């Protein structure tokens, strides 16, 4: 017997922790890691929902989320490398070229 309610609560907590990481960290790589954490929280929700309804569709969506996360990491890391090469740092407070 698996307490599915607690699985949903766990994924919510993981998502909030990832969101807090995006907001408090200044290193681009740490922000990417927090985004990974949030994606995994979403995956846990999808898989727990698939277990609740005993069908496969939630798991298939989680599979596609994984594929998209892999592509996102490749592009994000390339941008981080480019940022480090141009600015000499990965601190997001120092990147002000777009006057943001």
């Amino acid at each position: 017997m698996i307490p599915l309610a607690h699985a949903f609560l766990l994924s919510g907590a993981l998502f909030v922790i990832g969101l807090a990481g995006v907001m408090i960290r200044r290193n681009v790589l740490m922000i990417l890691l927090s985004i990974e954490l949030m994606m995994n929280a979403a995956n846990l929700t999808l898989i727990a929902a698939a277990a609740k309804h005993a069908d496969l569709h939630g798991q298939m969506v989680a599979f596609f989320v994984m594929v998209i996360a892999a592509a996102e990491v490749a592009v994000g890391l390339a941008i981080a490398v480019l940022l480090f090469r141009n600015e000499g740092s990965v601190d997001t407070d120092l990147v002000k070229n777009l006057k943001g």
Partner: protein
Amino acid sequence: MVSFLFYFFSALALLSALLVITLSRPTRALLALILCMLSLTVLYLLLGAEFLAMVHLIVYAGAVLVLFLFVIMLLGIGAKDIPLFSRFRFSYLILALLSSVLFLPFILIAFQSLPGPQTVFPTGTLAAVGKALFSDYLLPFELTSLLLLIGVFSAVGLAKKESAEGETRQQGRSCE
């Protein structure tokens, strides 16, 4: 036994997720995230997603996070500490509390509709997932290959551009 495993690895996942956002060195935070992924893999297994658990283990812990580790170590920014809480201000805390109070009713409504404990049968076996992937989800599955190809192209293009320009610049200088 199953619920003990569930709670143990849930606690491990929460703890390592907290470590991910609080450790100041990127390498250590990354290792904490790997621990989080491993405990999430066990949770996926318990929730009946066998194939996804293995894919998660291989793709995330084996490929994505090792790619992160390579980038952190190759750039040499693992050792450089960026102060953690320099963005924090107390006015933000008040705003956060206000918005939390606004969201409280929605959270309480969601609590009332949560499902109870139930026995989970493994539905995500390799045979079932393969059958679904190549029948119902054939078009999205083919499109993901296109997506990954575009991702590889853009990553190589982004990371390679600067060095190619640097080479031409150096060649120009040597000609001068």
